């Protein structure tokens, strides 16, 4: 793979994570447990779409096939998506949605801290903008996870069930392949595995406050960020998300 191609893959991974998670979060719109949460979730989704525009916009530029961020979002099929499996999982209950958000935010907060020093100016600039949003997100999702984990017996049980369900999808964030190595060598992005300690420290602190137990198994699902094997959920998500662009191609909206 050429360097440009590796860079493209890296950018798609960032952009697709933000895009797919924003879709999931936006599914809550009008259905959340408290009006304040409707607002907060919409806010998260909005920030993520903004990040999507930046990452996929740059990806389209690097790809140099005359495509736009919208083309990449709305006209690729599941196998071309490079998001981690975690973000495409169904929302489940509110607790699972917020716990997933926290796990993602925690990773992003560590990653963006590194990417602001990227050798690629555009990557650094995107990370600088995103990192402010991410700092806010992680604070908020951590608070909610602690509140629900250390709340009632029912809320605790639901949050533990959510953690048990989600934990096997965390490891994928720290897997490496040729693209990651190429990014590391070029100084564009760190090797994913180098983020693990900082991530674990943060997550362990919050989950301890939340009185939750990190599951013991070391198994990790993977296949999303390489595109090798997504879950069955992604295809259904895309059928909804891409409907208008697929049914009425070539229009301006």
């Amino acid at each position, binding site marked *: 793979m050429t360097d440009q191609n590796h860079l493209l893959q890296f950018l798609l991974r960032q952009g697709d994570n933000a*895009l797919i998670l924003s*879709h999931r979060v*936006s*599914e809550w*719109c*009008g*259905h*959340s*447990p*408290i*009006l*304040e*949460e*409707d*607002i907060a979730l*919409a*806010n998260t*989704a*909005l920030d993520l*779409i*903004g990040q*999507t*525009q930046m990452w*996929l916009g740059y990806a389209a530029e690097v790809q140099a096939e005359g495509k736009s*961020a*919208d083309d990449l*979002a*709305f006209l690729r099929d599941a196998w071309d998506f490079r998001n981690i499996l975690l973000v495409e999982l169904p929302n489940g*209950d*509110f*607790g699972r949605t917020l716990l997933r958000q926290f796990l993602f935010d925690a990773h992003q907060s560590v990653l963006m801290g590194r990417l602001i020093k990227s050798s690629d100016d555009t990557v650094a600039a995107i990370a600088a903008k995103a990192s402010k949003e991410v700092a806010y997100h992680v604070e908020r999702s951590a608070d*909610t996870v*602690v*509140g*629900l984990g*250390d*709340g*009632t017996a*029912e*809320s*605790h049980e*639901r949050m533990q069930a959510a953690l048990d369900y989600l934990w096997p999808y965390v490891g994928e964030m720290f897997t490496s392949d040729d693209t990651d190595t190429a990014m590391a060598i070029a100084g564009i992005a760190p090797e994913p595995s180098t983020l693990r300690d900082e991530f674990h420290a943060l997550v362990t602190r919050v989950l301890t406050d939340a009185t939750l137990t990190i599951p013991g198994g070391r198994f990790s699902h993977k296949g999303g960020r390489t595109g090798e094997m997504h879950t069955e959920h992604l295809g259904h998500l895309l059928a*909804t*998300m891409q*409907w*208008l*662009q697929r049914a*009425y191609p*070539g*229009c*301006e*909206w």
Partner: protein
Amino acid sequence: SDQERAFQDKIDADIKIEPRDWMPDDYRRTLIRQIGQHAHSEVVGQLPEGNWITRAPTLERKMILLAKVQDEAGHGLYLYSAAETLGESRDELVRLLHEGRMKYSSIFNYPTLNWADIGAVGWLVDGAAIVNQVALQRTSYGPYSRAMVRICKEESFHARQGYHAMMKMAFGSPAQKKMAQDALNRLWFPSIMMFGPSDSESTHSEQSMAWKIKVKSNDELRQQYIDQTVPQIEYLGLDLPDPGLKWNAERGHYDFSEPDWSELFDVIKGNGPCNTDRMNARVKAWDDGQWVRDGLMAHARKKAARQHAAE
């Protein structure tokens, strides 16, 4: 009584009534009902537009729509707060809504069936709401009036965005133009019914006018909305959704056909196309979220107790 006279004098002098001021029970009750219904409308109003968030055709359109729906939730918050200044809690108002004892605007019982509906809701529904709300900026109750000022600003922005979305559709491909026309046809009459029945049929109006809870009559507001909207339809190059729409030079207003009021009354009675779905969605959100509210509350109590013990 003296209190009543003083109260009415203030209103007549355009001095706002504030939460700690004395007010007649009926004034309080009427306001709670009106503000509560308005708050509920903002909350339920998330649903028809929310229906298209996951299908918005571009990233930018998705952001605009999400931000708009977010604003509506925010308006709900301001308005519930305004109702709280009158001594009615948000939880109680929500309970009344879920038990079917309070209403929300019937317009949200119509479905959003194609993407142009999203533009049309912003343009027509928010457009009609603004006409009403601009008038209400002068309402006599301070917190309500100030909420209206804030809300109006955002709503005007939404109405403009909605109109821009409609322009894209009306000036787009034949299929897009067809969507725009279809949306206009379906939403036109419901939007002009948003102002309520004709003045001759409207109850409570007189007292509300005197108290400046209501500032203009239903028919005045409706005419104002129609007059400002018809030229916009013409600019879009869409067919008028009502053959009765004609400029009346003598009146200096557009004439229009009487809407089918029996349809409105059906919708108010619970028989609109989406009443059941809307209420089911809201009640489900509330019930499914009970454990979340309970959990967060329990945590807050524990935390306070720990801090107290540590002091």
